[in-house]
């Protein structure tokens, strides 16, 4: 690891593997100069920052896709092998998850839409799997990546705001889509203009309030998940700075506490998604 001081160690662990475009004539960390604009991996945090907006966090993308594939593969495997006889442990676990999410959707969602329950299941299991990656000790996978020649590697996609905003903006687009589809453009506009105070003179005030409330939804969804996971990750990294023999006294309680946080955040993200979509389906 290229980390000598604690500060470098923390910064190192909080930097994503970034693939982006360096501008022509850019001087890299080792002193060499890029002749013309090239797409490459960032070798320092400064380079990653200089790549600007159009840079890909390859580790976030890779691990989130891997977890998505794992989720689909696992559930498909279990569904194909499901028996009506005595189910095995795996089938039990999958059925419990399924029924849990079904319960949430049945309690909260009042409209009619075949998409919502699969969406809720996907969001719940996907976020749960991505969050669970965090319980892997912070140095294991980055060290393997380092041995393979990758300087930075951050495995938990939900500790990257790009990952959480990706999911919440997808949810936001669905909210908009169903609001327009179920209520119609007029109905949606009417709901936004007349909602808290039902009087024509207060329409501009209502509009500001309601549009703000609408836009804040994906932001709060994404930042809540990101903030919780990031804070936990920072604490795990700080614990990893202690001498090895004492680490377990802090690591074990924090990891156990985090089993709760990991599940709770996945649960809340799912529930709020269903609540928002349910509100989008209410036609007055």
């Amino acid at each position: 690891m290229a980390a000598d001081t604690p500060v470098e160690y923390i910064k190192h662990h909080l930097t994503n593997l970034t693939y982006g475009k360096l501008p022509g004539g850019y001087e890299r960390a080792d002193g060499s100069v890029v002749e013309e604009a090239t797409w490459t991996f960032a070798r320092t945090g400064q380079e990653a920052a200089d790549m600007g907006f159009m840079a890909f966090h390859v580790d976030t993308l890779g691990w989130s896709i891997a977890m998505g594939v794992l989720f689909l593969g696992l559930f498909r495997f279990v569904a194909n092998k499901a028996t009506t006889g005595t189910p095995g442990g795996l089938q039990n676990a999958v059925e419990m998850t399924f029924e849990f999410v079904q319960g949430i959707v049945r309690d909260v969602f009042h409209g009619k839409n075949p998409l919502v329950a699969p969406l809720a299941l996907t969001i719940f299991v996907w976020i749960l799997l991505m969050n669970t990656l965090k319980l892997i000790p912070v140095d294991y996978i980055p060290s393997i990546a380092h041995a393979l020649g990758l300087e930075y590697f951050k495995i938990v996609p939900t500790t990257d705001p790009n990952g959480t905003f990706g999911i919440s903006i997808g949810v936001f687009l669905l909210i908009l889509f169903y609001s327009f589809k179920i209520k119609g453009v007029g109905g949606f506009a009417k709901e936004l203009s007349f909602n808290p105070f039902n009087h024509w003179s207060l329409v501009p005030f209502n509009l500001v309030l309601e549009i703000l409330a609408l836009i804040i939804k994906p932001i709060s969804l994404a930042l809540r998940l990101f903030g919780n996971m990031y804070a936990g990750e920072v604490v795990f990294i700080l614990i990893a700075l202690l001498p090895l023999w004492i680490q377990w006294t802090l690591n074990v309680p924090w990891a156990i506490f985090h089993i709760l946080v990991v599940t709770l955040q996945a649960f809340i993200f799912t529930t709020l998604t269903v609540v928002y979509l349910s509100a989008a389906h209410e036609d007055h």
Partner: protein
Amino acid sequence: MEMVYIAAALIIGLGALGAGIGFGLLGGKLLDSTARQPEMANQLQTKAFIMAGLLDAVPMIGVGIAMYLIFVVAG
């Protein structure tokens, strides 16, 4: 740079204060209503967990930011 430590202390302290009051109210009301209507216990517990997650988020984010301030910005 010493101000960063005071800022971090304020973030964690005030966050803990708010979370403590919030969890006290939430848990108290949960016990109250469960004692009054034990058959509602499961439903109430689920809803209380949603609230606990919402309540938990803000101080946790605060702790993360405070740690970042202490160890990265000041350190």
